C-alpha cells in the first residue's frame, strides 16, 4: 500500500495540474485540427528540438550512403549512360514545349486570362526521420528559409506526390497523396471530367469518390491535376484508374486509382511555386472587372476598359 502521508501532500495539486494540462492539450488539438494558427508554435518548438532531429537523421543517412557506395562502378556507368540518353530525349521534347508554352500564353492573353505558366521549381531531398507510425508523410530538407509554404505542391519526375502540411526553418513535412487526409482536385485527361482524389491510407491506393453512375470514366484513364482550389497547378499527372465498381444499390461509383508517381521510390522531389504566386488573390482579381469602379483601387491599367 502507498504511503498515506505522501498521497496527502501531493495528490490535490497533481490532480489539478493534470486537469489543466488535459484541457490545454484538448484545446491545442481542437485549434490545430481546424486552423493554421499553431504553426508558429510548432515552428519554434521544432527549432528547439532541431539538434535532436538532426542527430536522428545521421543513422539513416549513413545507411543510405553506404548502400550507394556499395554500388558497382560498372552499374553506375550504365546508369550514367542511360541518364545521358534520357536527358537528350527530354531536352528535345523541352524545346518543343517552349514553343507550345508561348502559344498557350498568347492564346490565354487573347482570352483575357492573366494566369502564367511559368513556375519556380526547387529540388528537395528526403530526410531520414521517422514520423508517426502508419502515416503517409515524408520530411524534406527545405523549409521556410527557402520560402516553402503550407499547401505547396510537391512532385517528382513522374507526377504529383503530395503537398506541404507543416514547415519549419530547415525542414518541411509533406502529406503524400495516399494519406487519408489528402485531397487533390483532379480531372480525367480524356474528357475533363472533374473530381477530388482522396487517399486511403494504403500505399498505392487512391479513391475518387462522389462520381455518379453515369460518369464517363474508364479503367486506365489518366487523372491530372485540375487546378481547382488554386493549390496545384493544372496539368500534372496524378493517378491512373485501376478499378471501377458499379454497385446499383449505391448512388456513387466506387473508383480505385494508383498514383502515377511511385511515392516510395527515389530520394529527390521537386517543390513547385505556381506561376501566379498568390493563388488566393487571383479570385478577387477576376471579380474586380465586374465590380463597381469606385470599389477598385485606382490603377492605370484597369481604368482603360
Amino acid at each position: 500500500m502507498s504511503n498515506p502521508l505522501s498521497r496527502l501532500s501531493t495528490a490535490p495539486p497533481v490532480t489539478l495540474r493534470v486537469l489543466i494540462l488535459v484541457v490545454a492539450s484538448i484545446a491545442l488539438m481542437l485549434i490545430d485540427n481546424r486552423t493554421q494558427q499553431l504553426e508558429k508554435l510548432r515552428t519554434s518548438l521544432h527549432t528547439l528540438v532541431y539538434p535532436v532531429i538532426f542527430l536522428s537523421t545521421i543513422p539513416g543517412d549513413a545507411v543510405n550512403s553506404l548502400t550507394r557506395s556499395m554500388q558497382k562502378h560498372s552499374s553506375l556507368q550504365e546508369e550514367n549512360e542511360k541518364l545521358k540518353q534520357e536527358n537528350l530525349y527530354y531536352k528535345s521534347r523541352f524545346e518543343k514545349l517552349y514553343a507550345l508554352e508561348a502559344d498557350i500564353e498568347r492564346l490565354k492573353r487573347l482570352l483575357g486570362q492573366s494566369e502564367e505558366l511559368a513556375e519556380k521549381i526547387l529540388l528537395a531531398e528526403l530526410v531520414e526521420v521517422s514520423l508517426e507510425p502508419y502515416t503517409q508523410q515524408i520530411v524534406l530538407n527545405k523549409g521556410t528559409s527557402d520560402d516553402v509554404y503550407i499547401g505547396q505542391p510537391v512532385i517528382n519526375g513522374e507526377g504529383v506526390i503530395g503537398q506541404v502540411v507543416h514547415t519549419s526553418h530547415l525542414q518541411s513535412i509533406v502529406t503524400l497523396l495516399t494519406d487519408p487526409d489528402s485531397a487533390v482536385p483532379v480531372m480525367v485527361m480524356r474528357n475533363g471530367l472533374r473530381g477530388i482524389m482522396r487517399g486511403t491510407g494504403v500505399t498505392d491506393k487512391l479513391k475518387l469518390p462522389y462520381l455518379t453512375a453515369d460518369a464517363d470514366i474508364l479503367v486506365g484513364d489518366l487523372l491530372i491535376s485540375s487546378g481547382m482550389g488554386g493549390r496545384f497547378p493544372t496539368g500534372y499527372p496524378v493517378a491512373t484508374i485501376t478499378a471501377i465498381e458499379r454497385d446499383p444499390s449505391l448512388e456513387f461509383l466506387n473508383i480505385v486509382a494508383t498514383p502515377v508517381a511511385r511515392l516510395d521510390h527515389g530520394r529527390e522531389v521537386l517543390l513547385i511555386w505556381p506561376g501566379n504566386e498568390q493563388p488566393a488573390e487571383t479570385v478577387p482579381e477576376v471579380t474586380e472587372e465586374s465590380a463597381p469602379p469606385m470599389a477598385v483601387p485606382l490603377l492605370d491599367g484597369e481604368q482603360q476598359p
Partner: protein
Amino acid sequence: MMSVLGSFPLFITVLISLFLTGVSLPEKLVPYWPDWIVLVLIYWGMARPGRVSVFFGWFIGLLVDVMHGSLLGQNALALTLISYIVNILHLRMRMFPLLQQSFFIVMLVALHLGITAWIRGMTGEFVITPLYWMPAFVSGVVWPVLFITLRDVRRSGMKR
C-alpha cells in the same frame, strides 16, 4: 547543487529517447521499435517523482508531436495521463518485481497507443491493425534491461 548534478542523467536519457523516436527505420521494423519516450518517462517518474512531473510529460509529449508532425496535443495528452498514473502509483510500482513492472509497462504503452489511435480516428481515418499494438509488448520485454541500465546511470550520476 545536488539536484542540478542529479538532473544531468535525466535530461541526457530523455534526449536519447527523443533521438531514438526520431531515428528512421525500415518499414518492417517499425512495429518492433519500443516506445522509448514512455519507457524513459516511466522510469524517471518512478525514480524522481518530484522532478519528473506531469508538466514534464506534457512538454515532452508536445515535442514528440512536433517531431512526428502529428496533431499538436495528441502525444502531450497521452504522456500527461501516463505521467499522472506513474506519479500516483510510483511507490507501489517500486515494490513490484521486474516481471510485474513489465506487465504494467505493457498496459501503459498500450494506453499511449490507444489514446493516439483514438484521436487519430476522430480527426481522420485510421485503421488499427493487430501489429499496431506490438510496440507495447516489445516495450515490456525491453523494460528490465532498460530499468537496470537507467538505475546504474542514475546511481553513477548521484555519486559524482
